[in-house]
């Protein structure tokens, strides 16, 4: 049986568990629907290393994907919490030097992962059986095949403290220009999530991206005058918690997490729209065959409805498998788009365009903010 044949069998947790209960661990593959696969099954590694983001991010992954995967296969999953942009050069160097990469699976932003795909360090995942059951969101835009599998989407919302907006929620990104918010707003320190709505708020058109981004930079200049704080995911929660800021452009998951921690916070998708993007999973080249096989099994399992439901309930994000139930607090929430019309106010630009222009946009954003 070839690896492709093996992968064509769906990995079904219930069937697996039924089989395990009946015949013990040795019969595990029977439960997978593979009664004769035991002899051909690649050797199981002692562990699979998955790079992940910390806090509620890794907790959700552990609960929804890693723990059930270990339960099914007996393979331990270790989460490497090295930052995504810091693991990247390590993986690239390992592949370039024909060394075994330091991780089996990278949980990565699609933009970051696209760089790795363009560099040619990602394994092709087109043969994952569960790709047959996913929505178009799983497919990376502008790339051949599946060097990455997108696993969910997210929105860079305008999160705010309701107390600071007594007249009602902000309607526009321009509301952040109110003088009372000077020094009280926050953006990502590389501007990610803000460029595209800024293009609209600055009077420009999304069709002009990337050719003419001047409206975006004009609006960023106006925001700069408001002396925004610039940080990363954990900073936003801290700043809201410590009363340092009243509003921020951040991923809805961070705002939701802050709310869970008891901070009075809400979020909107302003009239100019909000950036919608995806994260995904990918496997670096250079793994031994058996480890590659089990790494693929991990990703394949992450695409099952059961895994997605638990994992993404924790993150509060829409997945790539049809029929997922939104968490109660996010039903009809603009940060949890499920229907076609929900995407009307969300801005999605291809990862390839983002990747090819990221360096220039970053330099421009930094030049304004550091000036």
């Amino acid at each position, binding site marked *: 049986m070839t690896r492709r044949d093996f992968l064509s069998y769906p990995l079904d947790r219930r069937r697996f568990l039924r089989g395990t209960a009946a015949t013990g661990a040795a019969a595990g593959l029977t439960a997978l629907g593979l009664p004769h696969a035991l002899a051909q099954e690649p050797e199981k590694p002692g562990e699979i290393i998955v790079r992940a983001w910390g806090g509620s991010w890794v907790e959700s992954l552990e609960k929804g994907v890693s723990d059930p995967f270990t339960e099914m296969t007996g393979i331990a999953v270790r989460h490497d919490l090295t930052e995504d942009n810091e693991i990247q050069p390590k993986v690239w160097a390992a592949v370039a030097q024909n060394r075994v990469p330091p991780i089996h699976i990278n949980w990565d932003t699609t933009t970051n992962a696209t760089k790795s795909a*363009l560099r040619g360090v990602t394994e092709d995942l087109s043969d994952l059986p569960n790709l047959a059951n996913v929505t178009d969101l799983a497919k990376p835009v502008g790339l051949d095949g599946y060097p990455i599998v997108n696993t969910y989407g997210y929105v860079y919302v305008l999160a705010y403290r309701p107390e600071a907006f007594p007249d009602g929620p902000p309607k526009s990104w321009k509301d952040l220009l109110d003088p009372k918010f000077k020094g009280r707003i926050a953006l990502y320190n590389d501007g990610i999530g803000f460029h595209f709505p800024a293009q609209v708020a600055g009077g420009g058109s999304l069709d002009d991206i990337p050719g003419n981004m001047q409206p975006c930079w004009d609006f960023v200049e106006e925001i700069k005058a408001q002396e925004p704080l610039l940080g990363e995911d954990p900073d936003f929660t801290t700043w809201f918690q410590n009363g340092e800021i009243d509003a921020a452009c951040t991923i809805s998951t961070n705002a939701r997490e802050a709310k869970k921690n008891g901070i009075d916070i809400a979020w909107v998708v302003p009239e100019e729209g909000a950036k919608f993007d995806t994260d995904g999973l990918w496997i670096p080249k250079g793994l031994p065959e058996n480890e590659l096989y089990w790494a693929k099994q991990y990703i394949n399992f992450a695409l099952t409805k059961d895994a997605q439901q638990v994992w993404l309930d924790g993150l509060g994000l829409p997945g790539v498998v049809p029929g997922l139930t939104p968490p109660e607090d996010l039903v009809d929430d603009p940060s949890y788009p499920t229907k076609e019309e929900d995407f009307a106010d969300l801005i999605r630009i291809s990862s390839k365009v983002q990747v090819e222009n990221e360096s220039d946009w970053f330099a421009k954003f930094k030049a304004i903010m550091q000036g």
Partner: protein
Amino acid sequence: MQSARTAYPVTWRIMDALEAFAATVWPANWTRAVPYLMLAPAVLLVGLLVLGLIQIGDTSLRTLDTSTFLLSEEYTLANYQRAFTEPLFAAVAARSLLGALIVTAITLVFAFPYAYVMVRTSSPALRKFLLIALFLPFFIGQVVRAYGWLIILGNQGMVNEALGLVGVEPMRLLYNYPAVLFGLVQYMLPFAVLMVAPALTAIPEELEAAAGSLGADWLRTFFHVVLPLARPGLTGAGLVVVTLSLTDFAMPAILGGGSQDFIANAIYDQFFRTSDQGLGATLALMLVAVGSLLVGLIFTLFGAGTLAMGRARE
């Protein structure tokens, strides 16, 4: 008659054996090579650094192809052109240099009296207290200390709460240039005190007493006796503080609120955010060059201070 064993103790025999072994391994006519052998670790260390710099130099001459995210095969000066012409890098470099100079000046001003009291005090208890206070921060990493300042100086921090008690509205004490400089001074102070203290110890107290007996008041004694004699310590401390401040990463990153980057932060961004190792390597080399020039300038103007290990006084 003494037995042969008493006449020639076993310890001597061991020493003889060791000497014979040493003579075999390192013959006497190789003695002239000993100084060079002792230099070997330094040569190895510097050699590795030079190899690294050559590698960085090679990378700095290659540009990033964003369609493949590989560096170009051809050499080009494009990264240097960007580094010299883009306003972002000029702003960050100017901020870093100015910051390093301000931090050095303030740190030396604070370090000197601390070291002086620590060295001259007649109270052993006070000396111990000052020594403990000096070494305690070394057990706490830079990042932890920076986060400590976030707690103390934040909008809901201890300082603002204290100000609130006297009716002062909370004010933004963090995420600006002064906050970064403040954090750096606090971080650098122990280094500077450690460099200045030996120089002050080397100044005989009798010299100050002699100046006093000749009619000099405390101020004149300080400016005409203590300060000139302490110059090697101040120079050494200045060198250490200016180079560490110039290349610092954590304080600007944590206390700067994202808008007060130093050169090290810009280098990090190129390596880890835009994946442009070529431009990152260029900025790194330029930082090394600027740091070296600065140190060279200080050497020229003031000598190497205590870092010269006493050569300056010969």
